């Protein structure tokens, strides 16, 4: 089953990545079906959470809310995972990973799920006006497509800023950074997680939120080994390459979005590569062009040997489309190669040939899995990652 079918099968609102829902959903209805669960728990032990991406942080948020002892162990020196920010490149903060809110804006309130929060957040309506396709050497306007596609983005902050401000403050001290976990031993009455420096962390239960490619790459060894059914199910989810590049130009020669496929395929949701005006409605005085490429469309960039080769390749590609204007107007760039991040190893889940429910089944009531790939309703998204964590924490604390 590919990701599209997976989503179609399981959700009312098809979301996932930019341009997937060219046939616009009615975002103004509260289509956001994410919910912080409400439950009673007698659990009194400690939970280890592996990974401090959206799912790990959401897990921390709910565990903290239920007064459960926990610790989040994160491999990288910063938390956020595929939610990452660059605050210096432009005159607005840039999302180097997740950028769009593929849902009704109310999903943000639903993630927080706290009526006491007395704050407003400004978003931009991401409804590009100038839209071009470049197919078989020909550049065409398809501005009419702006009537079919609209999503949201943060105006002054980023996905990471949102987590920093509204989810993480109450439990920052429980996030342990620079702690790559290499082993999980759940053979005894407690679960032991060992990091790369052989430090051992103990808990009664462990929630693993690392990306599916990290699970597949055996960075983490399990004792006892995971069942073959579980391993097969994990291997059945594919997660391709991913890259984002931001380039500053001295002049603007590009449309709001440039697609490399015809509009029929775009409508079908198969667009996984685009150049887009990253400063669109951001009140920026700079010309910042973004490249978003995932799955097989990212591989031509991620497989190159160096960032210099990548930017040369990109400028050449843009020069071909825009008659040499890109290299003339080029100022500088920043590259986020997600495939090269040792604890991410790609973009996000895309095809599902395995049994996702098998992965979701707890092991010995001690080992649990969550993360973007495991949310049936909104896989490949930030809010999907949060929902998957909320659901799994509920399972963990109530069974």
């Amino acid at each position, binding site marked *: 089953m590919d990701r599209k079918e997976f989503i179609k099968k399981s959700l009312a609102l098809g979301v996932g990545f930019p341009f997937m829902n*060219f046939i616009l959903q009615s975002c103004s209805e509260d289509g956001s079906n994410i919910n912080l669960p409400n439950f009673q728990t007698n659990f009194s032990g400690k939970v280890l959470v592996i990974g401090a991406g959206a799912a790990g942080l959401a897990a921390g948020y709910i565990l903290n809310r239920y007064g459960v002892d926990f610790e989040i162990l994160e491999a990288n020196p910063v938390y956020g995972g595929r939610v990452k920010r660059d605050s210096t490149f432009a005159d607005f903060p840039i999302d180097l990973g997740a950028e769009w809110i593929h849902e009704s804006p109310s999903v943000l309130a639903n993630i927080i799920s706290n009526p006491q929060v007395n704050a407003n957040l400004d978003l931009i309506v991401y409804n590009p006006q100038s839209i071009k396709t470049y197919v078989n050497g020909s550049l065409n306007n*398809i501005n009419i497509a702006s009537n079919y596609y609209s999503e949201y983005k943060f105006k002054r902050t980023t996905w990471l800023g949102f987590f920093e401000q509204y989810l993480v403050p109450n439990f920052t001290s429980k996030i342990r950074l620079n702690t790559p976990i290499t082993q999980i031993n759940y053979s005894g009455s407690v679960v032991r997680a060992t990091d790369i420096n052989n430090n051992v962390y103990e808990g009664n239960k462990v929630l693993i939120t690392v990306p599916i490619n990290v699970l597949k790459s055996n960075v983490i060894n399990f004792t006892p080994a995971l069942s073959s059914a579980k391993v097969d199910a994990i291997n059945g989810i594919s997660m391709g390459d991913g890259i984002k590049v931001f380039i500053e130009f001295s002049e603007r020669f590009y449309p709001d979005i440039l697609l490399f496929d015809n509009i029929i395929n775009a409508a079908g949701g198969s667009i996984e590569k685009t150049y887009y005006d990253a400063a669109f409605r951001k009140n920026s005085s700079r010309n910042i062009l973004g490249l978003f490429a995932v799955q097989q469309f990212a591989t031509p960039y991620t497989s190159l040997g160096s960032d210099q080769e990548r930017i040369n390749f990109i400028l050449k590609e843009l020069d071909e489309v825009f008659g040499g204007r890109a290299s003339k107007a080029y100022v500088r760039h920043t590259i986020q190669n997600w495939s090269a991040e040792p604890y991410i190893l790609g973009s996000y889940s895309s095809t599902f040939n395995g049994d996702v429910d098998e992965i979701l089944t707890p092991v010995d009531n001690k080992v649990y899995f969550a993360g973007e790939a495991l949310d049936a309703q909104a896989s490949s998204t930030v809010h999907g990652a949060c929902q998957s964590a909320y659901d799994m924490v509920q399972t963990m604390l109530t069974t």
Partner: protein
Amino acid sequence: MFSDFYYFNSRKKYVQIKWSIVLFLFTSSLLAQDIEKDSLNNEKFSLRVGYYAPYINQFGARVGFSYPLKKWAKENKKAQTRIHKLEIIPKLGYFANIDIQRNYFLDVELQYKWYRPKRKIHPKIGVALGYMLARQNIGATVNLGNGSFTFDRRSLHFLVPTIHLGFEKNRANRIGYYFSAFYGRKFTGQEVNSDIFGLEAGIVLNFSKNK
């Protein structure tokens, strides 16, 4: 559906030719005919109220009045009479996709229809020129406590020429109906120009002019 957009966009020349053909048919039908004396005094004017779906995914309503301008009859070789009629239709419309924009549309259509007196349903073609005000959502403010949100909007002004093709059944009775498809272009100095197309269906209420 998108094949249509692509079709339109990738064949600008074709579209220009289409426009020229319509204009040609329009003027030639007026000039080349043996125009009989009008009997406009007996003609009816009509109120038309329609369901309006630009881009297919946006919905609204359109209200217009059609005023007869000219009417003439012509016989063909088989001695069949065909009536030709020219009408002007000022229309007021509203349509929206609330996630994107709300649009207020004022246009005037010059419509030409032709029919054999016994036939109740007849084809029509028209050209129209309109002004459209779009109130477009550009930002949103979400309340993180309760999830409610409001939009910030901007106004965009467009000049919109369109061509219309369709059919109508409205002569014999007080109430008739019409169906038409339209295609055109939205021109503005504030943003990029783009195509517009859509469907319209509605009822026609006929009023006798003399009453």
